[in-house]
């Protein structure tokens, strides 16, 4: 029974985190047509901010003096800070909000800086620049111990420690899903606004859009900054939920998964993103359960990744529009009209 509860908590929280990531990718790729192949870097930027700051600020607030190396002692001190947070909810919320604020700024700035050299060039230049920047970011996190404890990882204090157990887990679902809902609504509002139409015009015919006075580079930069800030928010929630941050967790596989969700659900349609994330999590959990029943001569995790790779290829080849295809935008509300024979028909009435 408790197991089922924890499973639901995990699925709900991860759905929220991936929905934020996928919404940001949908904004960048689905609306503007530039896939951010360095998505994991901005996700990591959020998580690294929390990893580097949460436990340090926490010990400062709690008045604990730090003894020993950051690398070896961060787990211990994060436990102590969690205990302090259990009786000081306001401090915990302050730490959460502060790191969230800082991380989203970090994400936006990093998004502009990392894409700057290639933002005027073709998509492949931008893609390899972002992939490489993401890898270097991960390597830096792994090798520079004072940041997030290098290969040991870093402990993150529990900002919901003041809730009773049970309510705490529900709290993380609520936190994750509410941020996901907010992010998705931003995406949806942008997508259906004149701004979204401009983005799609740039995506479909860059030259035509620029002849109409649209500054392509400015749009690209703003969208990448916003998308990266969103990814950083996902990173913050992920770090607090997991209770630790490990640099090697942020490998390019995460970027691939987010691309898979967006393409699978249907790029260009915000509703597709909702479905794509759900389908991925469903598949992932099913495979995780099947692992206990199947014996194969190789590690089944690789098999799962292989299947996801092939799935993305099949979608791209046979159903490139995804599960929920992009629809022409309604700029005028449709009404029900009557045909000659009296049956209702959904179209514009004269």
């Amino acid at each position: 029974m408790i197991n089922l509860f924890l499973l639901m908590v995990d699925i709900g929280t991860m759905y929220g985190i991936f929905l934020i990531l996928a919404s940001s990718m949908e904004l960048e790729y689905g609306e503007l047509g530039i896939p951010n192949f360095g998505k994991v870097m901005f996700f990591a930027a959020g998580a690294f901010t929390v990893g580097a700051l949460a436990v340090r600020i926490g010990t400062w607030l709690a008045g604990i003096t730090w003894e020993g190396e950051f690398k070896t002692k961060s787990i211990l001190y994060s436990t102590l800070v969690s205990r302090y947070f259990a009786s000081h909810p306001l401090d915990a919320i302050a730490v959460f909000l502060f790191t969230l604020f800082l991380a989203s700024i970090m994400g936006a700035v990093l998004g502009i800086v990392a894409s700057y050299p290639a933002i005027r060039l073709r998509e492949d230049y931008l893609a390899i620049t972002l992939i490489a920047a993401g890898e270097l970011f991960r390597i830096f996190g792994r090798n520079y111990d004072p940041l997030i404890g290098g290969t040991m990882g870093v402990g993150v204090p529990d900002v919901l420690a003041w809730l009773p157990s049970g309510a705490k887990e529900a709290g993380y679902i609520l936190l994750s899903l509410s941020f996901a809902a907010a992010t998705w609504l931003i995406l949806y509002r942008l997508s259906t606004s004149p701004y979204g139409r401009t983005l799609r015009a740039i995506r479909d015919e860059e030259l035509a859009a620029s002849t109409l006075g649209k500054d392509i580079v400015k749009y690209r930069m703003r969208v990448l900054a916003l998308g990266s800030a969103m990814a950083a928010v996902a990173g913050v929630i992920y770090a607090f939920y997991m209770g630790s941050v490990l640099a090697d967790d942020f490998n390019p596989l995460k970027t691939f998964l987010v691309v898979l969700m967006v393409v699978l659900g249907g790029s260009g349609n915000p509703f597709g993103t909702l479905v794509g994330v759900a389908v991925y999590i469903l598949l992932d959990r099913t495979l995780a359960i099947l692992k206990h029943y199947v014996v194969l001569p190789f590690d089944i995790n690789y098999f799962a990744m292989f299947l996801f790779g092939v799935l993305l290829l099949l979608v791209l080849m046979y159903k490139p529009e995804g599960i929920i295809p992009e629809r022409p935008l309604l700029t005028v509300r449709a009404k029900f009209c009557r045909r000659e024979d009296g049956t209702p028909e959904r179209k514009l009435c004269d």
Partner: protein
Amino acid sequence: MLDTNILLDALVYSNMLALLSLSLTLTIMTLKVANFAHGDLAIIGVYGAYTFLILAHVATYLTLPIAFLFGGLYALLNYVLVYSPMRRRGANFVMLMIASMAIDIATRSMLQMYADVLKLNFKVYSRAFIFNDVVFNIAGTRVRGLVLISTLSVVSLLAILYVLLMKTKFGVAMRAAIENPALAEVLGINVEKVYATSWFLAGGFAGVAGFFLPFRIPTSPDLGFIILLPIFAASILGGINSLSGAVIGGYIVGVSEILGTYLLSQPPINLSTAYRPAIPFAILILTLLLLPQGIASLWSRGE
């Protein structure tokens, strides 16, 4: 301060990189797809050669053609099964790019599964394996086989490619199909066949480059992704649409990566060698900022 071993290592690494960036450029020129699975072709080649080595105990260097064949066939398979049908259905550049990312993930996990099977059935190292080198004695100086053979391979493959492109009818057809596919089609050139051949060649070149990997560093399925950045840096430095530029770019990136990593890891800087990818990354960024058309734009007129 620098000993000859490091210079020779730089030469070997650059030979490899030149082959890889040349073949990447070839695929970008034909299909206009930035193949993010290009490094994996090298690993497919080396795993093919390694399997052959396990099955038939022959001299290591005799399996070089096997690496060419495996790399080439896998690239051909990618082209015939994925890129060509996608292009016929009107997929755009970005979709092909995403497809190559999916191929990268599928290929690497396939290699990982294969490595598990290999280990289980033959009780051999299937990850982080190395090849033992032979030492030649030429006029009293001892030369590592790797230095000699990798250099010879690059020179002969470049010569073959040059003759193929410039002196044969097929080469004319290939250049025409790259220059203007529609016009070439009208003139009776089978563009599809030409592109498929160039993909096979590109995969073969990558396979040969991959074959030299285990002589230098322990080779694992994920290595194909790790070498992707220097390959792209070399190709972009070369101007992404120039074969000669790609070769020169390969040597510039290769030599600077080896020498730079060596110098930065020495006193007084003592930087960890883990930051090694920073060097090709710096070259990539500088190229994009200062010379986005690559070094090929220095000697060829802008097209």
